[in-house]
């Protein structure tokens, strides 16, 4: 009996410990990505990485704030009120809008990485074991935010990435899915420069690493299927929208008022592609 209680107790303690993982560090990044309509404009989102040696989460704070509001009925009402007040007051800039769309949550003890994002109108998540990284460390160094960083390169899911990491912060973590270096990744650029992450600040923290809000609204899939779904949406957005809305005849007009056909809203993959390209 005693043993049962002890093991039960241990079990609860360990669950509590997992649930209340406290981060060591909080790092902010600016994530650059191309405009999927023309592949030219450099768009940015603000992301935060909170991490300790075992767990990490990479998310957009504004998106998380909105998701957190929408995860409770009271919050939803508050969000609607904020939106309505901003709308009535004519202050359209004040309406909280989601920023970057995805969440990346990793756990080293569980050896898994979870990715939450949307593809068009649907929300998906997929789970993968942690990637086996094969970084090539070079001799180049540079200073970012006062930290000496070393250059490293690797191929990852179809693109060649160049990362700058600092051994001064001995944490195997980085922006997006990137990690696997003996120090925090402060900057990373995909070949061509369309995708890029840059650290804008970092600080020590003891915030808990909380799970993703509204996680049950995401449909489970695998990585390649997700990428294909996303590409499909970009190639034929109206098809999906009309399919979902029962073909009520949604049309999109360009600046001159001409009807735009589905295929030409977004640029084709030959001009601008997703951050991972190994689905093709």
């Amino acid at each position: 009996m005693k043993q049962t209680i002890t093991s039960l107790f241990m079990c609860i303690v360990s669950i509590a410990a997992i649930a209340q993982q406290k981060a060591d560090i909080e790092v902010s990044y600016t994530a650059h990505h191309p405009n999927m309509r023309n592949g030219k404009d450099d768009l940015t989102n603000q992301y935060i990485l909170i991490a300790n040696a075992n767990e990490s989460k990479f998310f957009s704070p504004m998106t998380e704030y909105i998701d957190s509001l929408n995860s409770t009925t009271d919050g939803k009402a508050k969000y609607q009120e904020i939106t309505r007040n901003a709308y009535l007051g004519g202050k359209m800039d004040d309406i909280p809008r989601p920023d970057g769309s995805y969440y990346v949550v990793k756990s080293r003890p569980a050896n898994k990485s979870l990715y939450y994002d949307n593809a068009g109108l649907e929300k998906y998540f997929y789970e993968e074991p942690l990637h086996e990284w094969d970084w090539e460390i070079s001799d180049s160094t540079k200073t970012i935010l006062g930290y000496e960083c070393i250059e490293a390169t690797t191929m990852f899911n179809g693109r060649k990435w160049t990362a700058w990491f600092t051994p001064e912060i001995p944490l195997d973590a980085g922006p997006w899915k990137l990690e696997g270096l003996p120090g925090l990744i402060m900057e990373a650029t995909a070949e061509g420069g369309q995708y890029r992450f840059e650290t804008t600040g970092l600080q020590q923290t003891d915030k808990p690493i909380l799970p993703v809000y509204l996680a049950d609204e995401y449909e489970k899939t695998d990585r390649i299927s997700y990428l294909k779904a996303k590409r499909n949406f970009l190639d034929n957005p109206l098809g999906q929208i009309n399919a979902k809305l029962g073909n009520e005849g949604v049309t999109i007009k360009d600046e001159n008022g001409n009807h735009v056909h589905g295929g030409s809203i977004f640029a084709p993959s030959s001009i601008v592609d997703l951050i991972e390209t190994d689905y093709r």
Partner: protein
Amino acid sequence: MKRLIAYLTCLYVIINTMAQVNVTGRILDKENNEPLVGASVIVKGADGKIKKFTSSKSDGDFAITMPSVTGCRLEVSMMSFAKQSVALDSIGLPLTVYMEPGSIQLKEVAVKADRIREQGDTITYNVGGFAQQQDRSIGDVLKRMPGIDVANNGKIQYQGEDINKFYIEGSDLLGGKYGIATNGISHDDVGAVEVMENHQPMQVLSGISFSDKAAINLKLKNKAKATWTFHGDAGGGWSWQPEGAIWDGELFAMAVMPSFQNITTLRTNNTGENLSSSGTDFFAGRRQTGLSRYIGVAMPGVPSLSDKRTLFNRSFIVSTNSLWKFGRGEFKANIDYSFNRVMADASNITTYFLDEGNRIITENRNGTEHSHSLSGKFIYELNQKTAFINNTLRTNIDWDDMDLTTTGSIPNTQSARLPDYYVTNKFKMIKRFNGQHLITFQSVNEWESLPQTLSLNTGGDTFRQHISDHAFYTQESAAYAFIIKGVTLSLEGGIKGYLRSMDSRLPELPEELPGLTENIVNTNYLTVYAIPKFEYWVRRVNLSLNLPVSYAHYNFDKTIANRDEVYFSPSLSFNWKPNNRFSGTLRGGLGRSPMDLNLIHPGLIMTNYRTLKSGVDNFYNSSSQNVSASVNYKHTRYGLFANGMAMQTWTRLPYTMAQQLYGDYVIYSYADAKNDSRMFMAMGSLGKTLDFMRGSCNVNGSFSRNESQLLSQEQSVNSVSTGWSIGGKINGNPCRWFSFDYRIDWSDSRLTINRQSQSWLSTMENELSLTFIPHRKWQWTLSGEHYRNELTEHNYKNIVMLDTKLTFQLNKRIEFATSLTNILNKRSYNYTTYSQLSSFESQRQLRGRQLLFSITLRK
């Protein structure tokens, strides 16, 4: 064949093993022998470059395969542990590496996503993004945030306007005495500072009444919430002038819980630090009792240097502030007591160069002021969307005793006893019906007594003057407001009653002076008033028109003739905010107002040993007009904040102050004469973050011109004072081991009397502070000020003061510091000016060199 393959495989394995070294091992926590997961393991070559790396797996194990380990070192590091380094040449494998706790401190707590963020009307400043190593309180960090200004007394302005509320985690615990928080709360406990623009503190008025003021809210870090936080400082040392021991102590406790907040602080020092700002209520409106001191015994002036150089003090303050939330309302109690003893000394030496030899006249003034102040404030407040109730009971008791000894042409000793007793209760209730109708009731009652006693001892004779002055004020009002389509119409009506009596009797003076020597004055009034108000508020424009009109009956109980008056003083304001970045306001008003009733006293009152004042013997009204314009602009993404303001006022008084000399005495009185005065003022400020060095900068400027009339020796004198100033400041943290703060202020002023201009006189002040952090536990600050004051045209007085401070941080809780202020031991501020026939030398004392050892403890 099979065998051959087996042999070859064997050989291959052997060769392989010979050529490769398997660096394996396990990483354990030294404290409990538990394996550590996720530690970074690096093998560095003889050149210090990373050859291979891995991280420890779930059982703390790691394995790296290397062709050779000659000259290599293995480094293991992990957050919250000290780095371990092992030479691989002479070590047995597998290795066991024990990690000892020790923080790999982020040597720099750098910025987060944005140092300044904006969401609607709220601007959030990240405290970590602005704090520097040497900062202690949140006030130190607020000063570095562009757009926010902290005056020397602790008063906070945002974009050039005073804030209207100061919240801690959304609760208004301290009211206007927020100096306690800005000086007391450690910046390390605050996560972010939020500025809420156009803040309407009464929820019931939100969307109905426009506010152009901003409020500040401190968002605490989690570690400072739902618990008590404490910190304390104790310091002792020696001062070279005034010679003796010095002390400096502080105890600060704060609890921020969901239904209870408390801040209790106790501070004392005799090191020149002025604590009076901690007790100042920045939101206290003018007392409607309207009493003011007639006796004006002034302590000798100190040169225009910073307080810490000139203040000879002994100060003590204790303040406890609590807030309880229950139901939907909250109850607050603020109780403060302070004691201050200030001493000042001044000598003036005038030398007349005469044919028969020089004649030297020395005047010494030597004063001590003791002041005690006890205040209590008890508030109940209910702040909801449909109802607002506030009852505030406040009492203030102040004792101010001054003793001043003067030697010179009229050697004398003055002592003034100036206690002040004040009680007030304010009740306000607002109710909102159907979302569009508002009803307000308000009741204000105030009582004040201000007895004043001046004792004068001159040439062995003692004179004593006593003035008794007390007043009662009451105001009852009701208001109704309703809104339709962005238009708010309101009408407030009420009555005000005022009863005041004052009497004074002049002591018998050695010389015959003209005028009455006794006053028995009653100044009472009863006013009925109405304030129609029209507010148009749509989208980005707010227009507000106030049309207060009142009828007053003044009863002076035979002192002077009774009066009946009607007053109308309309005002208009217009605010335009086309977007979140820009806002512009225009204001204007005009009207008539009654004179200051304190001036009604036909008899003479002695204000100090050589000055007497008599008031008016008639009732007057003054009239005035004013216009002002202000603009402000911000771009939070670039961290840019700018504001500008210009104001012009015209005042017309039907009486003018006259000055007359009788022997050694100066007599001020009022004469029937038009006194038109004009004032123009303009100021601007521009602030910007400097993200590349985690700093910020600011430039500001101002100009003012003041024209007025005065009668002196029965001659009309027109005086114009003109002044302008510019200033700039910059701070930054360009590298990990160094940060700096620099400030410069330049001002120029001129007085023109009857179109005869005197020369422009300038003052310049430079202040620089450099902080070095050679090691994360050590910190060394070198700072100083340079003052350059122009005494007469092209005759400058320069003075440089240098300080240094060394801090050692033993751990997160304990810190030791040694500071040496005024290293050069400048003990006096003396200057001499010459004219053809005489020279004038002024001597003021400064605080001398001071050595202070202190210890700081935190919880």
